[in-house]
């Protein structure tokens, strides 16, 4: 993991002190509500349906066990609403049918961050100090600025990796932190970076998607995609550069964002993302960026060129950790042990097949701790569970975990011979659902139970589908399916990119759900990134599980041997799936 320098550490502490100053000025009436809002937003503090929400930045998803413990402490000591606030929330949500609004919890997001739902604003400065004590913060996790940079959860360990994206992500994190020119862009700005062949970071869906690759001469550079995004108008990014030398990335990003800052629309919030500018201007935008880049390099002297020394300095933080020495066992012996353990216990065998991924180091594995299980919302973790995750990271993964973009935790440094012990411990902790990439490994935003933007609740829909699909044989038979649920068009639950997408909509004050099929995040399984297509008018919450079942039954009826859901859908087309979905609507009695 990146090791903070004294400068980095002091910077975060000063930021926490600055926030305290702003909070106090607001509390004493010296800072107007409107003026305080963007300041708290750029520190991660939203005000949600009932209480403030804090979004903590987890740069490219990496967490140490020490940080996990502080996140646990914040959940335990601070994620508690004032009594009146909670009473109102329970009464209001109860009328909709939500009876569980957990407190003392944290939530893993699709952007690899961590959120809290109940911390009172009066305690916010204390929480920022606590975060700063472990080099954490909420800088630019909200607001119209460059947000936390996301990456491949398997960065640095993936077998298909061309180059480790983390040093670049860290260099860009520093460049984007409190960037003076780009703090009030037309709209939020999200960068994702991957360095592997497989795109596990949905780069095509980002304002800027970066893909590390090597050119014919063996030099390292970036494929630069600009103008992707979800929301009301889902668009896949346009390739601006097939190959940009790695050391030019910040000079180039400055050009990309400066042109956007000057010309992006500010008159309509739904048209303010860079995707709209890129789509509207097309080649003219690209020409402007290239002209600006030329000026930055030739006139300004390419000030942001990354030096080899800086790359080396940062990369030194990302060498594999020193792991406890083991009694030497050959790969064959370890494999034989695992096979025997798997033969003994089918649940362990399933877990090995689903939750364990290969590693650059043949003696190691990357293991997903699943946060997708009954009775808890996708990506939710209690204070105790966070502490347990920290213990597992210490015991099995050199003290490191990663937040994945599909809302789980990944342990990147697990010895193959420890897998069985890890599985036992994970099972004990409730993290061993053997469902990674299966239907119940669904993505869902907090939705209308917490979020002020939501048009409908996400969690009850996720819960109903989870309950219906608890048979692991059935889930395995259905195979890998991306089910993504968003409570509103802001698309935090990435519904556009789901093979099956569910979007909450509001009609006459009631919750309805639009279902889309055939979306892709750009992974090898799903094909080129694209938005799913709507199957028809929206459904009631009660209909949704039946609609999903009808769609899945259609898949089972049409698939060829070994064919995945998304491949079958692409082969036969959306029509039979659409017909099945619409056939699952409840029959309404004709009015007399």
């Amino acid at each position, binding site marked *: 993991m990146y090791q903070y320098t004294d400068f980095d550490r002091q910077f975060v502490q000063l930021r926490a002190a600055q926030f305290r100053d702003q909070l106090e000025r607001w509390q004493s009436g010296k800072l107007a509500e409107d003026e305080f809002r963007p300041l708290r937003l750029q520190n991660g503090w939203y005000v949600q349906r009932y209480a403030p929400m804090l979004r903590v930045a987890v740069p490219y998803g990496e967490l140490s066990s020490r940080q996990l413990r502080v996140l646990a402490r914040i959940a335990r000591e601070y994620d508690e609403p004032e009594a009146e606030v909670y009473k109102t929330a329970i009464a209001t949500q109860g009328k909709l049918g939500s009876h569980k609004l957990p407190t003392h919890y944290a939530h893993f997001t699709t952007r690899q961050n961590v959120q809290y739902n109940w911390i009172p604003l009066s305690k916010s400065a204390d929480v920022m100090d606590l975060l700063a004590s472990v080099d954490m913060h909420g800088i630019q996790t909200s607001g119209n600025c460059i947000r936390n940079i996301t990456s491949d959860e398997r960065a640095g360990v993936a077998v298909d990796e061309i180059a480790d994206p983390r040093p670049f992500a860290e260099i860009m994190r520093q460049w984007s932190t409190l960037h*003076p020119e780009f703090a009030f862009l037309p709209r939020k700005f999200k960068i994702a970076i991957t360095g592997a062949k497989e795109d596990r970071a949905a780069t095509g869906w980002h304002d800027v998607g970066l893909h590390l690759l090597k050119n014919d001469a063996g030099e390292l550079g970036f494929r630069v995609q600009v103008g992707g995004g979800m929301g009301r108008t889902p668009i896949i990014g346009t390739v601006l550069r097939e190959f940009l030398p790695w050391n030019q990335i910040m000079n180039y990003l400055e050009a990309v964002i400066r042109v956007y800052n000057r010309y992006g629309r500010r008159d309509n919030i739904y048209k303010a993302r860079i995707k709209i500018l890129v789509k509207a201007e097309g080649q003219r935008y690209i020409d402007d960026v290239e002209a600006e880049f030329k000026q930055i390099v030739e006139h300004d002297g390419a000030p942001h060129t990354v030096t080899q020394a800086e790359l080396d300095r940062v990369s030194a933080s990302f060498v594999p950790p020193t792991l406890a020495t083991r009694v030497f066992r050959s790969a064959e012996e370890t494999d034989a042990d695992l096979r025997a353990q798997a033969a003994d216990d089918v649940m362990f065998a399933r877990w090995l097949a689903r939750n364990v991924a290969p590693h650059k180091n043949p003696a190691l594995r990357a293991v997903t701790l699943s946060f997708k299980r009954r009775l808890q919302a996708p990506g939710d973790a209690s204070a105790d569970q966070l502490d347990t995750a920290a213990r597992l990271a210490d015991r099995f993964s050199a003290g490191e975990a990663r937040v994945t973009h599909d809302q789980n935790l990944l342990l990147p440094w697990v010895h193959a011979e420890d897998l069985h012990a890890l599985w036992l411990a994970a099972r004990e902790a409730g993290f061993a659902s053997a469902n990674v990439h299966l239907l119940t490994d669904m993505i869902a935003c907090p939705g209308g139970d917490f979020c002020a933007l939501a048009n409908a609740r996400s969690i009850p829909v996720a819960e109903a589908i989870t309950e219906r699909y608890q048979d692991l044989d059935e889930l395995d038979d259905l195979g890998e399916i991306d089910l993504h649920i968003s409570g509103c068009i802001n698309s935090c639950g990435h519904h556009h990119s789901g093979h099956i997408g569910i979007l909450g909509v509001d009609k006459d004050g009631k919750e309805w759900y639009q279902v889309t099929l055939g979306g892709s995040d750009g992974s090898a399984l799903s094909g080129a990134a694209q938005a799913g297509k709507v199957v028809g008018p929206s459904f009631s919450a009660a209909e949704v599980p039946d609609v999903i079942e009808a769609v899945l039954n259609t898949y089972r009826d049409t698939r060829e041997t070994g064919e995945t859901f998304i491949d079958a859908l692409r082969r036969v087309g959306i029509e039979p799936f659409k017909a099945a979905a619409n056939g699952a609507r409840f029959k309404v009695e004709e009015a007399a």
Partner: protein
Amino acid sequence: MNKTLRLIAADDHVDNGDPDVLQLPNDADPLAIEVCLGDLTRIDLVFPKFTDGRAYSQAFLLRRRLGFKGDIRATGDVLIDQLVQMQRTGFSSAVLKEGVDASAAQRQFDRFAAFYQGDAVEATPIFKRAPEPAA
């Protein structure tokens, strides 16, 4: 360049119609006025709302790209919490809105000793600067 801005009270910012002062709307292209920069001593840029950040890029281009040496003044919805970033993008003065407490302003400049990225004033990012000698 000072690590501060000259703060001007709203009453003291008057438009006398000076020919060497230009008010540039925030959707104008600063590069288009390059030819007349020599005749100007001050350019007023405007923040219609403090959340509209176009003038930051304008200031950067005027100061750094075109090398304008005169005063670049922030006008409009100027809040003390944005003064530091104004200074960093090339502004040299700012008109505070009526009723804004200027005493809290200087504190903002004193807070951070340095920033990560290069800007219009300190062009070099921190990783390329010579380390500070140990105290």
